[in-house]
């Protein structure tokens, strides 16, 4: 019986984590034709936590939705773009903070996801928030260099950390 409770509890916790990332929007650099775009889409669709991809063939922006019951890993999505032979210009996530009102600064541990807010125009985080991910490979190298010293000065976590500007 305890096991069942634990299972329900685990599912509940996982459920919370899944629901938090609503979608990710990735703008891809170097793409020029629909054949290349298609190969990127195919690469991303191999990820088991991805449920749907909508590609804008003219702006090369991919909007990715996630499957229920799986924990999304944004870095894995970005890695697939590089594996297909292209690079990333911008990575934006729509994240659900629900009714929580969290100060938009410093280290945030929310639903099993760790964020470091490096820059924010908002004071608090609640509801659905679009966030720019500033991790290496999520933005062009040139841009990453601007944030690199600040990121390196932060304490390193064992878990994947997302560096954020809002």
């Amino acid at each position, binding site marked *: 019986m305890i096991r069942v409770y634990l299972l329900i509890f685990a599912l509940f916790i996982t459920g919370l984590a899944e629901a938090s990332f609503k979608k990710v929007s990735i703008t891809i650099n*170097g793409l020029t*034709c629909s054949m290349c775009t298609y190969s990127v889409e*195919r690469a991303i669709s191999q990820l088991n936590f991805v449920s749907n991809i909508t590609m804008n063939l003219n702006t090369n922006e991919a909007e990715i939705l996630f499957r229920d019951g799986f924990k999304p890993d944004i870095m894995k999505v970005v890695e697939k773009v590089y594996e297909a032979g292209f690079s990333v210009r911008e990575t934006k996530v729509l994240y659900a903070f629900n009714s929580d009102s969290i100060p938009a600064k410093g280290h945030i541990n929310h639903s099993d996801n760790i964020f470091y807010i490096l820059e924010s125009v908002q004071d608090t985080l609640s509801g659905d928030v679009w966030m720019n991910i500033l991790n290496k490979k999520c933005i062009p190298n040139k841009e990453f260099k601007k944030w690199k010293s600040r990121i390196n000065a932060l304490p390193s976590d064992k878990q994947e950390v997302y560096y954020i500007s809002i």
Partner: protein
Amino acid sequence: MKRLIYILIFFSPWTYGQELFPNTEPASTIPAGVFGKRYSFQGYNAGNQQRQWHAARLMYGVNSKLTVIGSLIASNHHLREIPPNVTTVIFNHNAVSNSELFPMAFKGGHLYAKYRFLSLDGPNRHLRMAIYGEASKTDALHFEAEPNLMGYNSGLGGGVISTFLYKKLALSTTGGFINPARIQNKTEDIRMRSGNGMLLDISAGYLLFPGKYKSYKDLNINLYGELLNRFYGSADLNINSLYKDPGFFPALQSGRYSEFRGSVQFIIHSNTRLDLSIGIPVYSTYAMKAYPLYALSIQQYLF
């Protein structure tokens, strides 16, 4: 009005260059873990016979930077066995008066590996560079100075590819070398080696249609112009242990040529690629090359 349309096409933000060159390899690689297949055909009229060349190719993206390609080749470009009058046959090589009919036969295999070492991407532009190496094995009796690793000579090759793309224009150059192996037939006591070769190919591509994408189902029409420049040394021929001066054999003399390949490419459902090309001479030191050359290839990625 016509001029205005051209200007609009030229400056349209939705028109991009294309780098899926039909006759050369771009510096870009195949996506990691993806297989691709391609069938290629080349044909030209050699006076007494329609010459045909077929290649079946399997491609694989080992990782995002390394692509390997294996090809199997068949053609009717060569005699199956060394004829008794070999000296005359080599002398008359490719001549219209040469009445020998060559059989269609399997010619051998070709392995190619390409490693992308530089990738500078930006919005609607990129610069990529790659190095490549190739090796081939064939038993073709290729009695010509020009080396060719696609079913003519066994040997090795390598080079550097640079591909630049900015909006409507894609440009690529390939600089490389070919080091052919010796053909040796002990029973007839013939030793022959084609000259060492160098190549400098320049390709340009342009996306003609669609102006703006609606879906993956949109038919893409791309135009290409490619200039293939080849330079090669004279062949080394020994018959019955006697050195034959290549100066007496037009096909064995060193030379160079430039060939233009104009192509139209159709991409169907963003995966099936059909290339149709025609090759015409621009400059050649070897008068007996046969033109025009027609080429076709069809390719698909196996996702």
